[in-house]
């Protein structure tokens, strides 16, 4: 099966890179699935979203990506994010706390909404349901 070079690059470090056969992400305009040989593209991702990667070897995994965008060429997909967390790094309990606090509402509606969105993305990436 054809593969492509995929990298998730955070501001502080490269989180993951390797060969993969499929990448799915949510852009500001909607979900997108990328296979090798995709048309070159630059797309802004949701402020807080989840990326799924199917590496050519091993299990597919998720990562929570904040303030990111992706750049696609025929052979590669690069996801650049201001903050990114791999699913296994995510602390589910604290994300849940955060979500609860954010939904409880702060003084600043926008801040609370953004915090809630971030917490939801974390939970989704970790394979938990945000709405329990």
């Amino acid at each position, binding site marked *: 099966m054809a593969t492509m070079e995929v*990298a998730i*690059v*955070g*501001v*502080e*470090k*490269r989180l993951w890179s390797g060969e993969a056969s499929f990448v799915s992400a949510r*852009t*500001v*305009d909607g979900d*997108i699935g990328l296979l090798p040989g995709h*048309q*070159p*593209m*630059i*797309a*802004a991702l*949701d*402020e*807080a979203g989840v990326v799924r990667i199917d590496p050519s070897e091993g299990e597919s995994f998720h990562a929570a990506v*904040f*303030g990111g*965008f992706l*750049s696609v*060429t*025929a*052979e590669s997909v*690069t996801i*650049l994010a*201001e*903050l990114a967390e791999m699913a296994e790094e995510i602390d589910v309990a604290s994300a849940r706390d955060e979500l609860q606090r954010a939904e409880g509402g702060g003084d*600043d*509606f*926008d*801040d609370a*909404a*953004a*915090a809630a*969105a*971030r917490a939801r993305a974390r939970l989704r990436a970790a394979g938990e349901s945000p709405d329990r």
Partner: protein
Amino acid sequence: MAASLRVLRRRIRSTKNIAQITKAMEMVAASRIVKAQNRVHAARPYSDEFTHVLKTAAKAGASDHPLLVAREEPGRTGVLVVTSDRGLCGGYNANVLREAERLMRELNSAGKEPQLFVIGGKGTAYFRFRKRDMAGQWTGFSEVPDYPNATRAADTMTACFLAGSAETVQGESEDEQQGSSDGSGEGGEGASRSSSFVPPKEAEGLDGVDELHVVYTAFNSLSSQRVTSSQIAPLELEEDDESSDGESDGSGSGDSQERQAEYEFEPEPEVLFDRLMPKYLRARVFAALLDAAASESAARQRAMKAATDNANDLVDNLTREANQARQAQITQEISEIVGGANALAE
């Protein structure tokens, strides 16, 4: 004679204390370098990839967004100077400031009025003492900068850059009053697409600029750091005119193919680049801060090593002098005793 011996001993003691302190600082700096160096290397892919993506997009003729296309007749120009908060790091700050002065002279003679943004206590002190206006100053993180620090500085400059030299930065409009500009830069405006960038409070009322430059110390290796000034906005495209030079963006991989390929943008280029621009400047500023932090520690380590060595030399010399004085004192005492005994014997 006894007095001078005591003075010498006191000097030896205090010099040893100084050597101890500088030695400690040297070791702290040395351990900082390793950490800072790792951060520089870890963070490099992001800023490199980002620059690569934008350059590719710009070459594909995607957009005439202000970030990508140089403005005609640039007027005011923003200069970000990255210095350290603390001294005791040799010529580190002096070199940066000298380069900053050179750049500003150059800009002045090109008819661009420089507008200063300064990071680090030493730089702000330098310009304040000379009564030069600073549009922005940030201190307190030069040794261990983190991304929110870079965000604060970068967002202020982004706001100025977006305003352009004919304007000043406007405050947030009414309906955006709630929008967060807390500088954390990771979330913020959620799904709002039209204006994903809210100028920070501290940028309000500042004069706009047409170009942004940054002066910092690039960290090449432990033994080599170089003061660098580079333009971060608009993007410098080396082959604007000659379209054959594919190597100039540093990576050069499949570049010619990429340029021919039709790029898709989502959302449309104007909106996309509006979103990417603040992130891009944050990335560049953050990279500069990390480089500067590593260079600062390297400079401090070298300076402190030299200080320790000098202090040890001084201790050696003083010890020799003290020994001489002690010998002389003993000799004198002996001759006094002998003289006294002789006098009694007679």
